[in-house]
């Protein structure tokens, strides 16, 4: 049977969210709404020191003064911030030493998601700090990491156990008043991950966390802080899936990366939150602030595979402060049905001889809108700054849209900036070429979509690439291959 693009489109549209389910775990949930008491209550529940409570309140006060941004190329019904419960923790929360003790219902959730929190993962060398509705419930490989002096724990634990580190770095890259959602997150973040790699240590395994949104009506406000001390290296993975919900769920996370001199951080994300059904009903709002700071000779590399969420608003950025620092951004954004994505990156060149690379691939199908929005800024002191940007879009059907909004601001004459963008569909001549060589249309489309995104997929760590492939398959590749 000849496989046409028409059929592919149809398949894409009818593809329902495969990971939609809801685990019934009793949760300890705060009443809906947001005010100073709630912020204090969250802080108390987390048994936080006073400075943290104060920090949250400052952020909350700043947030009240702020207005929700409207510049992004997305339309959605604004969330009612007073209609959300800002804290929800699984109420059975003992600390486990082994998986056997974990609530079987929870384990089942992970099994359905195809995440092996068991031996397989251990063999793969992945330590998982699982965040289920805001509280970390299981941590593995802690001992191996501890031997190297690596701290990898939940942020609330870090606030208690390593206050000096948290105090020193939190809010330094993403200030608590940075933007509307970052301020909201700073006020109410319930949990997240903290990672510290000491001087000269190369983290022996990929660190990963999984975020889920489980409890209906709770927003997920994660806070991640990764600090790589001088000369260290870490590869950090983050992956997400969420159960189907009719009500739009809000996710406003903040991720801060700090790479000190000669350090390198590789941050990979696979995001597959509930994108809403075929009619565009439901789905997660993903408003995330991610930013990394590079000191001298440091390198930060963002890789993301975005296939989920109804509305995505996400710009992982690099501040290239130190001389010779490097920023990289590799992204695949797939939108289908009524999904809207406005994503991209910011590369702020401040130091001399700084380099950045941006590779962004957008695939839109159905009635979705996919936008790339990026900024490359070269300050007047950033001599010999170098940037290469490439934004390619692939359109499937004529009811979707692909948009490109690159901002380039250069104030230094020695800067060398290149930006290119293309928009196309799968070329008839490409398919013809494959057909001619005995590859049927179905395979040809799969091959081309694969080739289109491989440049980014290849940047993912081995352990994650498989899962990313799987997610892409669910959104696109599976339906053509």
């Amino acid at each position, binding site marked *: 049977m000849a496989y046409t693009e028409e059929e592919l489109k149809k398949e894409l549209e009818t593809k329902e969210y495969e990971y939609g389910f809801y685990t019934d775990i009793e949760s300890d949930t705060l009443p809906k709404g947001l005010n100073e008491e709630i912020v204090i209550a969250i802080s108390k529940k987390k048994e936080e020191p006073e400075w943290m409570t104060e920090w949250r309140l400052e952020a909350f006060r700043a947030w009240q003064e702020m207005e929700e941004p409207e510049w992004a190329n997305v339309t959605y019904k604004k969330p009612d911030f007073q209609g959300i419960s800002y804290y929800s923790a699984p109420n059975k929360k003992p600390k486990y030493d082994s998986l056997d003790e974990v609530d079987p219902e929870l384990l089942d959730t992970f099994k359905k998601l195809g995440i092996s929190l068991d031996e397989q993962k251990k063999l793969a060398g992945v330590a998982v700090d699982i965040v289920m509705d805001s509280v970390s419930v299981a941590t593995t490989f802690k001992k191996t990491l501890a031997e190297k002096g690596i701290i990898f724990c939940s942020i609330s634990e870090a606030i208690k156990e390593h206050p000096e580190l948290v105090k020193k770095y939190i809010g330094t890259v993403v200030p608590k008043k940075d933007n509307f959602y970052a301020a909201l997150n700073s006020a109410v973040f319930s949990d997240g991950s903290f990672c510290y790699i000491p001087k000269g240590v190369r983290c022996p395994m990929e660190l990963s966390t999984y975020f889920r949104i489980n409890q209906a009506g709770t927003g997920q406000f994660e806070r991640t802080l990764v600090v790589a001390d001088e000369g260290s290296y870490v590869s950090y993975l983050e992956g997400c899936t969420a159960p189907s919900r009719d009500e739009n769920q809000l996710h406003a996370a903040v991720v801060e990366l700090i790479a000190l001199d000669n350090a390198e951080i590789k941050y990979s994300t696979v995001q597959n939150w509930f994108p809403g059904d075929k009619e565009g009903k439901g789905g997660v709002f993903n408003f995330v602030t991610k930013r990394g700071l590079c000191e001298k000779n440091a390198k930060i590399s963002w890789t993301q595979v975005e296939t989920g969420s109804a509305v995505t608003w996400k710009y992982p950025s690099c501040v290239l402060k130190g001389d010779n620092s490097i920023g990289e951004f590799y992204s695949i954004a797939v939108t289908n049905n009524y999904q809207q994505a406005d994503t991209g990156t910011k590369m702020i060149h401040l130091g001399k001889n700084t380099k950045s690379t941006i590779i962004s691939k957008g695939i839109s199908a159905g009635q979705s809108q996919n936008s790339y929005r990026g900024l490359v800024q070269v300050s007047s002191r950033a001599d010999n700054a170098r940037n290469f940007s490439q934004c390619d879009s692939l359109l499937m059907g004529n009811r979707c849209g692909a948009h490109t909004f690159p901002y*380039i601001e*250069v104030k*230094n004459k020695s800067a060398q900036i290149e930006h*290119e963008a293309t*928009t196309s569909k799968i070329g008839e001549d490409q398919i013809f070429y494959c057909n001619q060589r005995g590859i049927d249309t179905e395979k040809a489309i799969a091959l081309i979509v694969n080739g289109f995104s491989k440049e980014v997929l290849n940047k993912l760590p081995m352990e994650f690439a498989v899962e990313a492939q799987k997610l892409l398959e669910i959104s696109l590749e599976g339906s053509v291959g």
Partner: protein
Amino acid sequence: MDLKEKLISSFLAFENNVDLDHPVHEVRSEAIKNFENKGFPSKKEEAWKYTSLNNLQKVDFSIFPKEESTLEYKDVKKYFLHEIDTYKIVFVDGVYSSYLSETTHDGVDVCLMSSAFSKPMFRQVIEVYFNKIASKDESLTTLNTAFSKEGAYIYIPKNKMPKKPIQILHLATGNEAALMLQPRNLIVAEDNAEVQIIERHQSLTDNEVFTNSVTEIFAGKDANVDYYKVQNDAPTASLVDNTYISQKDNSVVRVHTFSFGGKLIRNNLNFYQNGERIDSTLKGVTILGDKQHVDHHTLVHHRQPNCESHQDYKGIFGDSSTGVFNGKIIVDKIAQKTDAFQQNNNILLSDRATINSKPQLEIFADDVKCSHGCTIGQLDDDALFYLRSRGIPKKEATALLMYAFANNVLESVRIPELKSRVNKIIANKLGVRIGFDL
């Protein structure tokens, strides 16, 4: 009193001088209301993020020049493309100068907006075309619409072509300490017509001039329109140039913008493709020094299938100059088989110079070929070394490379005399004598 208030109160005085019963006046009243609501654009608006009009608003501009000025042709000859015979529409301080002009009604109409508004024979054209594509929403365009009274009116009927190119020249004498001009041009090329137009704004003194110009161009089926904008004004002259172009099937419209001088220049160039197999070309060369500021804002809206658009903007920025490029391509759902290309190349010569570039694509159709490229860099050291090793001094070698850089844009200029004139301006600007035309 700030400029906005002054303009609004001047509108009442303006009404005394125009025919209030003319249908156009209703358009003007609507427009001033919009401007009253919106005011001047601020940097907070995305479209004006990199260009500020604040300084201009502080100047006490005269809206209506008090006295008529006369100029001798020999004094202003150099601002004309005098090497070839052309029709000329010349305005001195915003007032038509019949002495310097050469208009015609021989087969084609090359005359004035004021007569087009007042004479019944033009009534129909005005009703069909006037203010039909100019934005009714953008504040500076509506400000111009409100005060629209004078400008160039060019009407080329079916299958006609004027005998010679047309020059539109706006001269400012400096009789006023500070002068605001609002020319309004209407250019209609009916089916299969052809026309070449050169437009220039020139201030003759150091007194401030602020020109807010709006031009509407309609190209019928198979029409061919060439529009050249030469912007090499005095360092005290500012220009906001709004151009709206509507094209029908198989038409070809090329707009070349040469920005070499002026204090602040903002070009809003908008193409609307209302037919199939249309070709739109937008090209520009910008060479700036001192504290000059040039902002190119382009829009190409592909509304029908099988059309093409080509954009090519080159910029060389020295001293403390600022260059802005904001190009937008929109491809509608039905505009399949669109081929849209956009390129913006920039060279920075100084650490104090700034370039802000924002090439955008908004695409809703799948079977299209759209691409844009943007580069910011320096002259190639190897090329420079090659030239110098062959005995060409550094300054000339640099100029030669810059010529080469800008040549792509100049290539498509179809009036040879204009091309060599622009080359001379570039040579002047770069401070070299190359001794040959490129």
